[in-house]
């Protein structure tokens, strides 16, 4: 049986019918073709699927699409304002905070959410905040630098 849901995704309200067992990440990727959100595990531990729900970072692999009904969801595709990148996107670029790019959308969503709560995190706080996201390429070194750069207003 389908469930009708209404979700504001990246600033646009969408209404769709979804199956109860559809995960939010599959709804985003398959129903809305927002393939920037990736799947890297099945145990809620890699963080590649991180999106914002009502402004907070959540793992979209561990949410049902029906649970998102009535919420506001932001994915990596919604981070730019016009052609202007979000400061965290820009910082990842400047600092070489990505290599293969697969974990990157989740990383950007998680770290930009961190800065909403803590505008000037220490290196330790940044590393703790990245606990839910795995990167296999960068050793996190430049991801940490990217977050620091974004926190300092991109300078």
């Amino acid at each position, binding site marked *: 049986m389908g469930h009708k849901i209404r979700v504001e995704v990246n600033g646009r309200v969408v209404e769709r019918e979804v199956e109860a067992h559809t995960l939010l990440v599959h709804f985003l990727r398959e129903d809305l073709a927002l393939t920037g959100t990736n799947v*890297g595990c099945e145990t809620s531990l890699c963080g590649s699927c991180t999106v914002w729900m009502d402004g907070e970072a959540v793992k979209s692999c561990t949410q049902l699409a029906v649970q998102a009904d009535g919420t506001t969801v932001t994915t990596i595709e919604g981070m730019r304002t016009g052609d202007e990148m979000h400061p965290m996107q820009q910082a990842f*670029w400047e600092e070489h905070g990505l290599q293969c790019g*697969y974990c990157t959308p989740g990383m950007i969503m998680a770290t930009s959410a961190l800065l909403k709560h803590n505008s000037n995190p220490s290196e330790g706080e940044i590393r703790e905040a990245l606990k839910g996201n795995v990167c296999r390429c960068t050793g996190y070194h430049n991801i940490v630098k990217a977050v620091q750069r974004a926190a300092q207003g991109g300078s």
Partner: protein
Amino acid sequence: MADQGKARILGSAIKRREDPALITGKGRYTDDFTLPHMTHAVIVRSPYSHAHVRSIDTAAAAATPGVLAVYTAADIESSGAPGTVPTAWLLPDIKTPEHSLLAKGRVRYVGDGVAVVVGETRQAARAAAELVEVDYDPLDAVVDPQKATAEGAPQLFEDVPRNISFDWDLGDKEKTDLGFEGAAHTVSAELRNNRLIPHAIEPRAALADFDEHKGELTLRMTTQNPHVHRLLLSLASIGLPEHKIRVIAPEVGGGFGSKIHLYPDEAIAAWCAMQLKRPVKWVATRSETNLTDAHGRDHVTRAEMALDAEGRILGLRVDTHAAMGAYLSTFAPAVPTYLYGTLLSGQYDIPAIYVHVLGVFTNTAPVDAYRGAGRPEATFVIERMMDLAAAQLGQDPAEIRRRNFVAADAFPYATQVALEYDSGNYEPALDKALEAAGYAALRTEQKSRHDAGSSKWLGIGLSSYIEACGLAPSQVAGALGAQAGLWESAKIRVHPTGTVTVYTGSSSHGQGHETTFSQIVADRLGLEVEQVEVIHGDTKEVQFGMGTYGSRSAAVGGSAIANGVDRAIEKGRRIAAHMLEAAEEDVVFDDGQYTVKGVPDQAKSWGDVVLASYLAHDLPEGMEPGMETTAFYNPSNFVYPFGTHVAVVEVDSETGDVELLRYIAVDDCGNVINPMIVDGQVHGGVAQGIGQALWEQAVYDDNGQLLTGTLMDYALPRAHMLVSFELDRTVTPCPHNPLGVKGIGEAGAIASPAAVVNAVMDAVSHRGIRNIDMPLTPEKVWRAIQ
């Protein structure tokens, strides 16, 4: 001016051209593609590590709504397809039992495929897969490579006694034995190199589309080497002619070796698409990936080192059991032999070395190249032995290394294990690393902690590594059993306006080739990087190429590009000379201008000359129009990056917990094209090696069940477990390639396990502890301290 131009582009940390798409969610990986009428394949996998398959009943699954087909090995066989995944590296007397796409009557590891279900939806295929009834007759299993060679051990293949696929050695045994006679000191150890799961964060995936009218297959897949996959698919798996297969590597989310190899799954997806005449997508779940991606390492080694009274090495004997898993993966036999045994001289002048390796089948996932591939295992052996020797002789680990280094003036240096080191200068890298670490101060702090009775013990570990990479001289590879050449190709297509499209056989999956390769071309031609486009990862667009692994892209792929560009410049010189009415040998090319020597106002720009080549109104006699070159670069030797890494750790003596405090890496990868990308490669490699040393391990129980099948149990390094790394370098250019570059993709993973383990052993050595097997989990360290 020209020099400034060069300084600006080559060697500059320009931002990656790849990134804007990747950071905005526009990067498209295999699973991001959807095709009309696409279907979904799910592989039914064996839950047993070893069993006869008595029968497979597919009726219930096939009758499920939404299911299009259920196939088994019998179906593949009757289709006439070759139906195998091959081994592409053969050794003398190697036993290479068939590895069929789906199991024929017997499964040999948990995850071995027995059937495939194709459904209209993934959900339908998944549900039906659970209805495939397989009648298994379980057999005893063996997972330990030493136990597998014992008489009476469960045997995986009838015609492979004691499960030994190959018995290989290298070096002079007698000479080595002589070295041990009369040695002042001998040091011995049993060293285990833990089995790892690569964990590219993008799981393997394939999307196959068969055009029945053209007879053409298009396969998007997670691959590091699309042409190699096309070749193997054609010859061994699906039997379609090579020119009728197009393999595309879209964005690939990391590989680390795991996407070099051809696996059954991707080939099955291709075969299914040919049967059904509909697109078939297969995407591994993380647990499937962990069960079936080729694992790395898994060595059990007995090593002995002989030294004289002063600590100079007289000989090294190494005996290794290397697990191959249930089948020989694509390049598996090369890893514990030519990529391992040949590296056992390390940075040292060792007069005699003998290494003996058994490649052994076990009831586990196949083992093949994983970041470093053989070289981390070799570095671990030699660098652990150096520390054990230092401890036994009471010498400082830095000093015993220094004493044994191949001298700076001894290059080219022929080792006792078949390599000729073309260049090297090891002491400056060691010195730089020690200075960066503040080695003397660390030793002082270590002592003062002990004197104060602190429960937090400090440890400092060194790893002076060398690697042979830039795989590889094709003649050497061929002589050693490779069923492929290991050159690289580049096509340089210069457009009439002078801009360039480069087609490279290297296939980027995170390394930043589009940026680095553009820098090579722009630097040589005096262009901006924006005037260069790099195309890779599509067999229909790109000429045959060997792909990206073995830290080969800059050294081999980059050299091919450099040579191709130089050929275009040469052709341009002839045209320019003709246009300028000068002798060819008097025309020089620099920073985008052809000028006549001594007549600087006599010049033609690159763009003018290229346009002339396409107009062809007035070309030198006999010259063909156009400006397009293809270069196949076959390296004359490996390249030999080296360096010294220092790890500083703190061991909590009450819990055994190891905290990484600092990590210093001094690497020498020759000339640097983009320092930002080079540093990034070191960071990633170091993190993986630290992961191996401290946390990562694939654990099978005695029945061959994988106990670390998900991220709940297999610990990957996370940000809070690591530190910011302290990097520096020395520059010793490679003497034999046009760029003077060496590889850097694997160096970090090669050096770091030994550095970290040496550091922990250093911290606990006052308790008489000499060795703990990786990963150094708190409990193991605590038990050793007790």
